[in-house]
């Protein structure tokens, strides 16, 4: 091939790469604009005034409290579930795995109705769950339950894939030493899956923090009791846009911090024992 031919080929390849980049750039721009709008559209004075709004601090406090509780419950129950799902074959295990992923795809509003019908005053379990005249709905506990329902699947999904990425020979060898299932789980499974578990926990936390629809349906929007940050934003929007903006920026800052946390957690995965595929999906928020 002549050198001009090579040059032409190189130019054409460059052009095609630039075109692909430009088309993809459109989406990037679309995703960046709202973030930019939020930050650029809020002056420092607006932000400070917004933070002083009476809705802000109770909502922030409640959001942190409820998401921490739901995270602890999700990790405590979700880790053994994920370990079991990762190492059980058969139809029932696959069915259980699909069931666990269901809350990811059903709309949060539908989740709220479903939770009312399961745990509400006239729900499936009401007969033996509650003393006469009491119900979990419209309490802080209901906020936590709604958060667990919508966020736990993200943790379980990440944890199952983290456990599955462990080299099977490591588990077989541990068993040849006579290791009990408990010891294999604690000393081999947990440490090797730790980065994936941490990433899953952070994603799940982010999803719980943004939870809106199911909470509104199942727990209501009661200031100080069930009004979390997203609900406070919704309420503030009706009266004081600045407070809504300030709250949104706070929530976004937390979300960015959590996202960076996920990347850091996955970046430390030991490369030998686990494969490099990062099968973690990002939570879908919103009502």
């Amino acid at each position, binding site marked *: 091939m002549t050198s001009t031919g090579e040059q032409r080929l190189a130019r054409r390849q460059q052009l095609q790469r630039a075109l692909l980049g430009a088309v993809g750039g459109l989406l990037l721009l679309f995703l960046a604009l709202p973030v930019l709008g939020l930050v650029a559209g809020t002056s420092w004075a607006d932000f400070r005034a917004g933070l002083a709004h009476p809705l802000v601090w109770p909502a922030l406090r409640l959001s942190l409290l409820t998401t921490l509780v739901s995270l602890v419950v999700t990790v405590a129950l979700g880790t053994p579930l994920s370990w079991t799902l990762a190492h059980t074959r058969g139809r029932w295990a696959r069915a259980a795995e699909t069931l666990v992923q269901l809350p990811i795809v059903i709309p949060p509003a539908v989740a709220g109705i479903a939770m009312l019908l399961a745990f509400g005053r006239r729900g499936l379990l009401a007969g033996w769950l509650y003393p006469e005249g009491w119900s979990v709905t419209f309490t802080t506990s209901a906020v936590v339950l709604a958060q667990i329902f919508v966020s736990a699947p993200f943790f379980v999904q990440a944890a199952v894939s983290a456990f599955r990425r462990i080299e099977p020979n490591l588990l077989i060898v541990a068993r*040849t030493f006579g290791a009990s299932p408990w*010891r294999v789980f604690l*000393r081999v499974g947990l440490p090797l899956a730790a980065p994936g578990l941490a990433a899953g926990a952070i994603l799940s936390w982010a999803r719980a923090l943004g939870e809106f629809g199911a909470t509104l349906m199942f727990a209501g929007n009661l200031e100080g009791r069930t009004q979390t940050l997203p609900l406070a934003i919704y309420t503030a929007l009706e009266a004081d846009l600045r407070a809504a903006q300030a709250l949104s920026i706070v929530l976004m800052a937390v979300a960015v911090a959590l996202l960076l946390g996920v990347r850091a957690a996955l970046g430390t995965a030991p490369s030998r024992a686990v494969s490099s595929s990062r099968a973690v999906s990002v939570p879908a928020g919103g009502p």
Partner: protein
Amino acid sequence: MAAAGLRARVTGRIGGLALAFDLEVSAGPLAVVGPNGAGKTSLLLMLLGVLRPESGSIELGEHVLFDPARGVDLPVEGRELGYVPQDYALFPHLSVRQNIEFALQCRAGLAPDEVEQRTGQALAELKLTALGERRVTALSGGEKQRVALARALSVRPRALLLDEPLAAFDIAARRQTRAFLADYLGKLELPTIVVTHDAADARALGARIAVLEAGRIVQAGSWAELEARPASAFVAEFVAEFVQA
């Protein structure tokens, strides 16, 4: 003291492959050779209890590991077999010493000072004492293999299974490691099975050689016997491969 022999006669089906093998090994390693996909690793996994045979029996001396007719199918944890897989399966989050300690801690009824003492013994036995605090990810291939061997033997298994112990080495390191393994395994007095696809490895490591083809053992005997009367075209080719090399 001669160790109790390992005897396995089993049939089973793994994916599309029907496995049927009958093998016996006492002191002096048995090399199991065969082409890719012949079922070599499946054979090891059946002995270990990871894969379940359909019928037959696996015994270690008086110790029955698997015999459905007698209602026995010991789990992996109860078979007391040492296993060194091809990738060594060292725990990457533990140091050399911790890898061995972990194995010993898994054995019920060992006091902490006994764990410590036997870890030291196992390290010294395979000249690993100086590497005790190293992370296993920082070791050379030969060192990793010695750690895996030390770890497997530290719990005093009833038999030892090695899967392609030399596959990960380049030619120069391979010759040296082969000589070390031949010497070391030969002195163990433990029923030992070494799976390999390489003629030179089989000849050096195996006191006897069993040839597996499509899930069946087509011939078993010494290298000289295989050479003198190859039972199949593959055996003849396999033996010739070494002579050429």
